[in-house]
């Protein structure tokens, strides 16, 4: 079975993607558990009311019942939307390593997105930190990529398989040529010149 090659927007023509990593699943697990709890509340209340005999059935024909059902429906729809948005916030946070650069994508809310790039030839050191019982057990932690010059360090939290990521980044950073080579973007994608700080 062939797998689709990894790609992302603004990928260069001859750039090879090594990995595209989301945050560890435990980050989204806790958040989703909270939303599921809130969504289950109206259902539990209705079931309890029906079981206790205060409400005859699921269908209502009174004004008060209708208002309650509409209110509960709005509440559940809102919880579903917030859960979806929370999941998207988690899903769009990525750490990408290619043979040329490291890219950190951070989605903040629904309409704010920060993309930071660091050429591999600027990578000075990669440090990982695993703190806490869950992190140690599941093998996720914080990666800090120190860069040369005045660029800010990359700090990415809750990265799974941190030590493997560290090894891969260091390996490709060692292999990266230490000269600035101009790369052509893929056809059809707008070419964005790299900013001096590595941030857009």
């Amino acid at each position, binding site marked *: 079975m062939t797998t689709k090659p990894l790609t992302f927007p603004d990928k260069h023509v001859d750039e090879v993607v090594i990995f595209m990593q989301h945050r560890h699943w435990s980050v989204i697990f806790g958040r989703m558990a909270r939303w599921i709890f809130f969504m289950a509340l109206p259902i539990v209340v209705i079931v309890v009311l029906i079981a206790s005999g205060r409400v005859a059935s699921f269908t209502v024909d009174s004004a008060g019942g*209708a208002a309650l059902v509409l209110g509960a429906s*709005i509440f559940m729809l809102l919880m579903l939307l917030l859960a*979806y948005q929370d999941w998207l916030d988690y899903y769009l946070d990525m750490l990408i390593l290619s043979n040329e650069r490291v890219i950190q994508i951070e989605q903040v809310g629904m309409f704010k997105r920060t993309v930071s790039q660091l050429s591999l030839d600027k990578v000075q050191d990669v440090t990982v930190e695993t703190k806490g019982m869950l992190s140690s057990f599941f093998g996720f932690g914080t990666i800090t990529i120190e860069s040369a010059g005045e660029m800010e360090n990359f700090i990415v939290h809750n990265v799974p398989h941190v030590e493997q990521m560290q090894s891969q980044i260091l390996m490709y950073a060692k292999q990266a040529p230490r000269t600035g080579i101009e790369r052509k973007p893929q056809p059809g994608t707008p070419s964005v010149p790299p900013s001096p700080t590595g941030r857009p």
Partner: protein
Amino acid sequence: MSIPLAVFLYVYLAIVLVLGVFTLLVLVQAMRFGTKSTSSYVMSFLCVGLMVLVLVFTFVSVRNVDWSSTMSIGVPGLSSSTGST
């Protein structure tokens, strides 16, 4: 104070419309910036599907309601009559 029940329905539909627009925006963001993986499609389908399910259950639940009736909302403690001492 009596409020026509239909007002509740109109307010509900307006809120559902706003939530639908936001859901569409989130869906567009997911399709635009996501990696087009199976998990993104599954999650998007699941969330939107559950929202549609909630709407269907809601309309099934209130289909017998007489929307032309009114609902009285009383404020406890307020009275139109004045007392004399």
